[in-house]
């Protein structure tokens, strides 16, 4: 009697937990629509001031990033980069003032963290609006995985400034994402891939003199993908990988894992993943198991101010890569850097220049389509065709083009090191394609 009442309750608990999981997804719609309402006016003042005849037809560009929660530290500066490009185009009298560009800014965060289902929902919202001709985003590779089939189906040109997972553009994985039109590609990126990022990090790790490394990843598309490239590359270069572990979502305690790592006596710990999936806490707890002198390395996922905050004093001796040039140091980006600071009152983020470039490519593609159609409102297909044909495009991050997969033809990586609590550019690499 007693037991039966308990087991019934437990069953109900499981059911309720499942219901709770569903409700997570539906809550995103509200999050994203409020953000859209809050952010799009930011673009309109510039639009209104651009020309006297601002009554022209509006063409919209979608922007999807994690704008709240722990990922906001990287998402907001990225969204701002795209916004700035749109505002500048309007101010310069886009398409002779006949059309006005406007941004639809959506947030793909749920419970403080980027969420693929939320990203997919945002893309559906964009596709449903016929005035949206292209989109910039997302930030996270697993979100891109959920979005690519949708933009592929709708033929909506999508450029990401920051997704680095290989399977988004090349190989069988990429083909599987292009479900509706396997032979056409609507997804592009101006950053490089993890196979190049992971390889560069492995070379860098060897250059630092590390022989034995322990690899940990967060079991997500991006983190595991990066770690799975770093691991064999490091071994091929003569290094030893002492072990490869995966952490789980919402984990707080890494002491057991780090005790195991410590017992293998590594020269460094490599982490594939984000700060929101545990990167900062993992680094912070290395002090608890007596590994405060062991260096830490990761990809662009830990290259955020959030990491410095969470890891605290332990952030020092951390090395990470950014799949973008250090725009603050590029002569070609100085005008952009200044304009960004003037507009938003803060310095650029790691992917602001990439995002700005992505939006500029789309704006150029739309402008060309308008011109080719004799001033008529272009179709999404026309815009996509022009984006795909991008070649020799002069941008703050260099001369950009896309290959047949949608990858950039000019991959550049920056390597950073945290010293005295601040990231310092350590090295810059131009990779061969």
């Amino acid at each position, binding site marked *: 009697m007693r037991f039966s009442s308990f087991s019934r309750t437990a069953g109900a608990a499981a059911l309720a937990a499942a219901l709770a999981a569903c*409700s997570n997804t539906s809550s995103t719609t509200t999050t994203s629509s409020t953000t859209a309402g809050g952010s799009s006016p930011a673009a309109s003042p510039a639009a209104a001031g651009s020309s006297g005849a601002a009554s022209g037809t509006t063409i919209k560009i979608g922007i999807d990033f994690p704008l709240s929660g722990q990922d906001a530290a990287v998402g907001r500066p990225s969204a701002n980069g795209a916004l700035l490009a749109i505002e500048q185009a309007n101010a310069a009298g886009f398409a002779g003032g006949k059309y006005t560009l406007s941004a639809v800014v959506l947030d793909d965060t749920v419970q403080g963290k980027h969420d693929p289902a939320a990203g997919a929902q945002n893309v559906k919202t964009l596709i449903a609006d016929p005035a949206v001709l292209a989109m910039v985003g997302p930030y996270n590779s697993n979100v891109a995985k959920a979005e690519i089939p949708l933009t592929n189906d709708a033929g909506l040109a999508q450029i990401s400034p920051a997704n680095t997972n290989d399977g988004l553009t090349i190989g069988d994985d990429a083909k599987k994402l292009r479900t509706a039109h396997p032979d056409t590609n609507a997804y592009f990126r101006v950053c490089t891939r993890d196979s190049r990022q992971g390889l560069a990090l492995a070379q860098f790790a060897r250059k630092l003199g590390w022989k034995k490394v322990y690899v940990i990843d967060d079991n997500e598309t991006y983190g595991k993908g990066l770690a799975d490239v770093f691991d064999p590359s490091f071994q091929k270069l003569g290094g030893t990988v002492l072990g490869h572990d995966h952490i789980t979502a919402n984990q707080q305690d890494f002491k057991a894992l780090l005790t*195991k790592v410590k*017992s293998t006596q590594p020269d460094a710990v490599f982490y594939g993943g984000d700060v929101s999936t545990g990167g900062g806490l993992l680094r*912070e707890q290395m002090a*608890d198991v007596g590994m405060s002198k062991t260096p830490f390395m990761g990809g662009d996922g830990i290259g955020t101010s959030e990491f410095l905050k969470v890891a605290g004093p332990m952030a020092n001796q951390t090395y990470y890569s950014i799949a973008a040039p250090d725009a603050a140091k590029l002569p070609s980006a100085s005008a952009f850097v200044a304009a960004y600071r003037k507009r938003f009152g803060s310095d650029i983020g790691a992917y602001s220049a990439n995002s700005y470039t992505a939006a500029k490519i789309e704006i150029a593609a739309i402008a060309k389509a308008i011109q080719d159609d004799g001033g008529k409102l272009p179709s999404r297909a026309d815009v996509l065709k022009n984006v795909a044909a991008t070649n020799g495009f002069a941008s703050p991050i260099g001369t950009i083009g896309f290959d047949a997969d949608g990858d950039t033809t000019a991959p550049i990586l920056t390597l950073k090191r945290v010293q005295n609590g601040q990231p310092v550019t350590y090295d810059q690499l131009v990779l061969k394609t």
Partner: protein
Amino acid sequence: MHLDGATLLQQLINGLSQGGIYALIALGYTMVYGIIELINFAHGDVYTLGTFFSLAVLSLLGVTGVVSGPMLIVVVAAAILAAMILCGLTGVLIERLAYRRLRNAPKLAPLITAIGMSFILENLMLYWRGPSPVPFPQVIPNPEIALGAVTVQAKQIIVVLLAVVLMLLLQSFVLNTRLGKAMRATAQDKDAAQLMGIDINTTIALTFLIGSALAGAAGFVSGVYYGSTWFFNGFAAGLKAFTAAVLGGIGNIAGAMLGGFLIGLIEALTTQFIGDQWSNVLVFSILVIVLIFRPSGILGESLPAKV
């Protein structure tokens, strides 16, 4: 893979201290289930709230690092008492507002309400302290005690001791006081207890007060132990603690403690021998197996001890 005695011992210490935190949370789960047969899903979030409450008191006192001398006792007492009192009151408030009306409703209604309460608390904390991990000052001096190749941190010993002491206090309260007797009577048969002149509402409120206060204590300890917290912490910790309560025998105080320590140990050893990603899988598989072969848990719902 790689194994030596020292690492194994170190993992047992890691497991025990993590388990101590689960155990403190599990005590509240088990008390509430024991008395009104409700799985209080909001309990894990009350625990996180405890960390935030004690953090607020620490910032009020201007504490940002390790405190030494007699001030240490004052600071720790203030932080832990504030967390216990405020969490206790939160628990009573939740019971009064959300659960009391549903006491005679079908089982599913209060359960869904509990999940709703959990979301409300999580989002209040999200609003209060933001979505990122918030650093927590070290407060307690943390000398590392070296035992051969194994090092034990003072805070690990504190976690385990606190869990055991609070469990014993709770046990003796339930077994030896009039109020404890009233709780046991209410757990056995609410209607009969009421006929015997026991104020059911007060007794149940008291259960929530004590259970949530223990979660508050766990919240303070976990802040010191991990050096940080964030609004979503209670979700995973609450699930583990609930599992601990079921594993030990839900409604059984000593069982909750045993379950907590066991789960901490299982996690640490899984991480060492199989891989970190499998620890949740193993913990919940063991839960399923125990429920199939020993539905009342390891120690069972021993009635005399049942709250």
